[in-house]
């Protein structure tokens, strides 16, 4: 079996984690998330041209149509145009935009039109933030119940690490953060936790089985034992995510990107952050020993 001294290099990992987290927090504070329509409210209309149009001409048309403040950008292919309007919502705004663009004799087709009231957006934003916190809280409780509170602390910090860096990644690159990306972030919480639990499970088992007090050695062993599993699962998950990213279309582009980054982060954090945290919070053999009696049966092969 491979024997990599993971814990010996933990200080490098700390440094990497801290740098990433600081950059992420910086991006979140100074640049902020580029919240999508779902959270801000507003109007957006996607149209498809037969032939790629000049963006300047599209803007001119819209200015003539008196649509107030708007922005125009291409969406995926250069025949697809995404128009964002600021709240000037009216009966069938999608059709209005298409009519305005069509007036020049172009062949334009409405792909989708969306309007979200600002109030709904605000509410959704609060709800989503709350949802994320509840998810973290419930998960921490479950880990504390199944393992021990120090494990819960480690899992929580590791999840926080993943979420902050993932959000920071989106803020730094200015990518649109909409409901599907939020779903992806929550899925990442689930995935990363899954990974963390597997490592913790092995650590618990090894601590109970061995007589040694050398936690660093026990951790290394546990991580190495689960390493090939961790890489296999991350590998298959990444494979399907790459399929989604390249083939799934623009509407789930950011969704799959968030998951790809999240899976990489989750794999890293379950090895370094989650396990290494247990050293920082001074996990001791005694923390797990009282439970040994009822679980001792586990260790005997039937």
């Amino acid at each position, binding site marked *: 079996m491979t024997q990599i001294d993971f814990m010996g290099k933990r200080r490098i990992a700390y440094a990497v984690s801290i740098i990433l987290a600081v950059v992420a927090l910086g991006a979140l504070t100074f640049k902020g998330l580029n919240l999508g329509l779902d959270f801000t409210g507003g109007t957006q209309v996607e149209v498809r041209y037969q032939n790629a149009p000049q963006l300047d001409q599209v803007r001119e048309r819209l200015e003539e149509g008196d649509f107030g403040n708007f922005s125009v950008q291409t969406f995926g292919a250069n025949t697809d145009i995404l128009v964002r309007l600021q709240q000037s919502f009216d009966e069938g705004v999608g059709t209005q935009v298409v009519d305005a663009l069509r007036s020049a004799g172009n062949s334009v087709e409405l792909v989708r039109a*969306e*309007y979200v009231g600002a109030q709904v957006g605000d509410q959704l934003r609060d709800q989503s933030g709350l949802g994320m916190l509840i998810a973290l809280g419930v998960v921490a409780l479950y880990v504390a119940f199944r393992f021990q509170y120090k494990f819960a602390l480690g899992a929580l910090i590791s999840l926080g690490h993943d979420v902050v860096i993932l959000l920071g990644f989106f803020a730094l690159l200015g990518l649109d953060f909409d409901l599907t990306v939020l779903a992806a972030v929550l899925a990442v919480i689930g995935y990363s936790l899954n990974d963390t639990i*597997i490592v913790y499970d092995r650590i618990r088992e090894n601590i109970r089985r061995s007589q040694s007090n050398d936690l660093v050695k026990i951790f290394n062993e546990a991580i190495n034992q689960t390493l090939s599993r961790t890489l296999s699962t991350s590998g298959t998950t990444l494979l*399907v995510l790459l399929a989604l990213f390249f083939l799934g279309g623009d509407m789930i582009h950011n969704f799959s990107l968030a998951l790809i980054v999240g899976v990489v982060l989750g794999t890293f954090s379950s090895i370094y952050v989650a396990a290494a945290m247990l050293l920082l919070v001074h996990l001791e053999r005694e923390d797990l020993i009282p439970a040994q009696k009822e679980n001792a049966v586990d260790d005997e092969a039937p």
Partner: protein
Amino acid sequence: MLNRYPLWKYLLILLVIIVGVLYALPNLYPKDPAIQISGANASATVSGDEMNRVARALEDAGINVASRSIDNGTGLFRLASDNQQTRARDIAGELLGQQYTVALNLADSTPQWLRAIGAKPMNLGLDLRGGVHFLLEVDMDAAIEQRLELNASAMRDTLRSEGIRYRDSEASDQTLSFSFASEADRDRARSLLASQYQNYSFSNTDEGRPGLTLSLNPQAVSEIQDYAINQNLTTLRNRVNELGVSEPLVQRQGPNRIVVELPGVQDTAEAKRIVGATANLEFRLEATDSTPEDQRQTFSFRNDDSRRAALERDVIITGDRVSNASTSFDESGRPQVNINLDGQGGSQMNRASRANIGRNMAVLYIEHRTRDRTVMKNGEQVTERVPYTERGIISLATIQSALGNQFRITGLDSPAEARELSLLLRSGSLAAPIYFAQERTIGPSLGQQNIERGVISVIVGLLLVVAFMIARYKAFGVIANLSLAVNLVLLIAAMSVLGATLTLPGIAGIVLTLGMAVDANVLIFERIREELRARPIQQAIHAGYERAFTSIVDANITTLLVAVILFSIGTGPVRGFAVTLSLGIITSVFTAVMVSRAITNLSVGGKSIKKLWI
């Protein structure tokens, strides 16, 4: 013996797989593009005659009809190709006229024997089939205000008939207030009203004139709100049915919101007008010279702003009492709306008209609308929604004789207006005004594209995982892949049976689940490999499965917790993702633990093998 299941366990697993396959099967039958023809009201049913006419018209237009059928008075034409669907609807709609509703439909082509066991394909979400999604907000304050006005009108009636003189009445912010000439009048009024209106709490005010303030109980307020939203739901369902949309969704969301989804509808403007119309009618007598000043209200005419008329404040009946309405033309060819009232409305109308022959009665058209206004608030541009009510007289005519429960309204601008008014009167008015809080329109091309891309990424993702597992675990990789296939079948079956709606994020959820589903098997196989170093083969297999079990359960329960939270906070597409993820976790634990174990037991269990291909 080690690694052998008793026979019943194999049979049970086999049974689950067979049931899964059966219920997943309907998804393989593509839905046929179709048009559906139904009668616009209960008296009009579709007969073979209409079907023949439509069939001939479609044939003339060069549209290929695959098959046709009539079921329960509803006709269905299945078309050969879906790009002729809209044209077919227009042709049939023009031919049959107002008496029938023609709707686009996707007809289920599941064979009879599958339908008999209740198997049905998954519903496709709006993002996959195109359509309109509205989130409507019900204006609760207006609902309460309306109820107050209605009660105030009845109270004034009571006071007048008892000969109690009151000065003025006012309704605002969940309270009604009256003022009286004397304290004796006030006390009489109080005891009279208190016995009839238990929903209010009464209090005296003594500033200036002796006054009486009635405020709604909190319980009554919440009852009114519940009534308002339920009434609106019913009305919206009626209207959506009149629109002729197949498989529409009208659903309450939260305390004061309603979701309306209309698959296949592309003309949002029309859909919005019908769904969101808050038009209602009021019938009132014209004021006479003897009408006291505070009982008059002056309105202008709808089609002529300069013409005005003073009406009495009391309403004879409102549009809620209309039981049926249809359009036709009067002798001189102008559009008119024929109205039937329900029993109570009829007798109210009869009483009022009999006592007032020779006076004028007005039909008042009321519409609640909003406009957006941009204001500066704390240095930021904020858009405020300002509700306003438009009231206009559409007709003012002399009462010639006592009216019964049938009469007609003239004075409408166009046949289209008459049609819309009769539709609105038929489907009922909204108990409270509604506002559009959110709107999404998905074009049909995007839907088609989303489906294709979703299917391709599922297939490619699946193939990559299959290849990876075989490369890494050889023979056991095949076992994992078999259980993965079973997993996919069970997941689709579960989603179909539960009636879950498949959305694009839902497909992403399936793909993600497939990637993660092998995790449990990976855990087991890695464990078996480890155990092989210390134990003989059969014991290693057994220990591998046993030892990995706690890890699998812990890991999946936590993910399930997250999925449940995702479901409870999410809306629309995100919920679809959460449902897929949760079901995927459950099926993957079953397949990884039970199915893969069964295959392992069957193939290598209890046999003396020298080497494991793992």
